[in-house]
């Protein structure tokens, strides 16, 4: 019986919307366009976050960093499903000397082939070329400037007092815009690093969409000892915070937009209701209860919202899909930003957040917007309605 009654009210509400098509169309367009635009904007926000993470981790550090790994643990041991690549690195602090000048640096021993495959640092070469095997060094621009060194020059690296110094040839100079890299890190092939430590550092690069936490969990289960694997989020709390801030800002924007839109919907729907006020009075006279009247109005708003949200999702998702295929080049606005040091191209991405939050907020606000017109009709006596209509 309840289902039959509900079916009747849904049918009545649908007929009301279909046969009041102009008003329905205008209200639906408001909701539809807001949902579509906000899905696209949310996807852009996700795309910007992705780009910041991609730029930050692919430049050098990887999604996960492993510290003080013993020789017994091989890079192959860190490869598992979802891991795109592992770079083995040796960190040796010291100074670089050239023409009587000296700069403190951390010399990072790398496997050039792995680095070319996993990182984007080579793309930031401003002079010379990326590392080759042998005694070569890849210097940050700030360090090279301080030393007065350029590609092809010979420099000396000293790991400290009473340690063996080595002569290295500057293969190239890079500029990332990331201060600590440009000012204090130099790269050499592992074979050239003078101090052979028994411990190494790993940079683990993951496939798209893989959460670092899940891989760290795998490592911790695999190795009995905790080697101190850390995700990019722990190592770059500023970036993590920026991304969280981006999500919070976007959520506030969505809520505010729908707050305003819902006020518009409530106002427009109330005008809509007032236009048909006498009909609601007649329905009351026919014995439609206040509860049924409220349900009818809420169903009308809910149906309109559902259809408009669905169409908004389709349009927003389609726009995102197209934009994600070609990318949106914001290099002009990101070129001096350290989180966009590799590329300023944004690929909007649909996530549960970007796809579901706008229609969900729209639906909730839409229902809230129906309370006002529902109250207008259900709390008035039929005679009052018929008198003023």
């Amino acid at each position, binding site marked *: 019986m309840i289902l039959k009654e509900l079916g009747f009210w849904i049918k009545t509400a649908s*007929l*009301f919307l279909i*046969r009041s098509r102009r008003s329905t169309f205008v209200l639906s367009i408001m909701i539809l366009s807001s949902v579509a635009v906000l899905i696209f904007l949310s996807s852009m926000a996700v795309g910007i976050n992705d780009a910041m993470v991609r730029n930050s981790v692919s430049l050098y550090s990887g999604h996960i960093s492993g510290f003080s790994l013993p020789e017994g643990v091989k890079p192959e041991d860190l490869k598992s499903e979802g891991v795109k690549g592992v770079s083995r690195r040796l960190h040796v602090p010291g100074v670089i000397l050239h023409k009587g000048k000296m700069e403190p640096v951390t010399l990072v021993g790398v496997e050039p082939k792995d680095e070319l495959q996993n990182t984007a640092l080579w793309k930031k070469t401003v002079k010379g070329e990326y590392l080759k095997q042998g005694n070569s060094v890849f210097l940050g621009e700030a360090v090279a400037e301080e030393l007065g060194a350029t590609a092809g020059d010979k420099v000396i690296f000293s790991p400290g007092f009473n340690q063996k110094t080595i002569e290295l040839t500057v293969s190239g100079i890079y500029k990332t815009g990331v201060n600590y890299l440009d000012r204090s890190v130099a790269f050499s092939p592992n074979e050239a690093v003078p101090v052979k430590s028994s411990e190494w550092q790993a940079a683990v690069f993951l496939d798209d969409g893989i959460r670092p936490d899940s891989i760290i969990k795998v490592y911790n289960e695999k190795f009995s000892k905790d080697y101190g694997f850390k995700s990019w989020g722990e190592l770059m709390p500023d970036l993590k915070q920026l991304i969280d801030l981006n999500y919070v800002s976007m959520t506030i924007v969505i809520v505010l937009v729908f707050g305003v839109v819902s006020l518009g919907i409530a106002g427009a729907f109330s005008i809509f209701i007032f236009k048909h006020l006498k*009909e609601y009075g*007649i329905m009351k*006279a026919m014995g439609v209860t206040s509860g049924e009247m409220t349900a009818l109005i809420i169903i009308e708003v809910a149906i309109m919202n559902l259809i408009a949200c669905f169409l908004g999702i389709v349009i927003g998702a389609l726009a995102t899909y197209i934009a994600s295929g070609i990318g949106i080049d914001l290099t002009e606005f990101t070129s001096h930003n350290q989180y966009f040091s590799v590329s300023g191209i944004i690929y909007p991405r649909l996530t549960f957040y970007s796809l579901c939050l706008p229609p969900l907020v729209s639906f909730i606000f839409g229902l809230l917007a129906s309370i006002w017109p529902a109250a207008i009709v259900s709390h008035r*006596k039929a*005679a009052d309605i018929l008198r003023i209509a």
Partner: protein
Amino acid sequence: MIKIENLTKEFRSGRGQVRALSGISLELPQGVTAAIYGKSGSGKTTLLNCIGGLERPEAGKVVCFGNDIHSLTSRDLSLFQRKHMGFVFQQGNLLSYLNVFENIAFPLVLNNASKQDKENRVKELLEKIGLKGAGKAMPQELSGGEMQRVAVARAIAHCPKLLIADEPTASLDTATGTSLVELLFDLGREGKSTVLLSTHDEDIIRLADTGVHIKDGRLVGR
């Protein structure tokens, strides 16, 4: 039987408190057709609204078929109206987004009529009101007289015990108005409904079994 006891209704307006009905008492047997007449502003509509439960009086009782309708809760009153009452107003009676068939079927669906009963009853009424082929027409496609005939059919569709028509001929020409009231009374008598109609047209008063004369909110004659 409809029993009205000492009915008083006041309105607050710009001119202060206005007494629309003053102690009206009246008894109407079941199945009677009654014309409530009087000048404009005499209280005819207010009396009908109070009898139909659309308005609550300040004092007095309206007992319809043994139920003091103003002592019912809002929900129970709605359910009582749905089952036992039918209304026809001056104009704009129809739900604009429902077609003629759906408008007439509306009270039947509210009263849980089966699909077959609903279709049979609407078809029967469409034939009786002379709009056999107009089931799918929208209200705005009908003339004023046709709209009122559909409103009458809808008011009578669920065979209510009480049919209230508030100046149903006000927007119609005399001939159309008279034929509408004849239809209303015929359908009412056929369904053994009590029909209360307000008017100031003497020709229409003569069509009713009884007349109730209202002046300045008081019953002045029958």
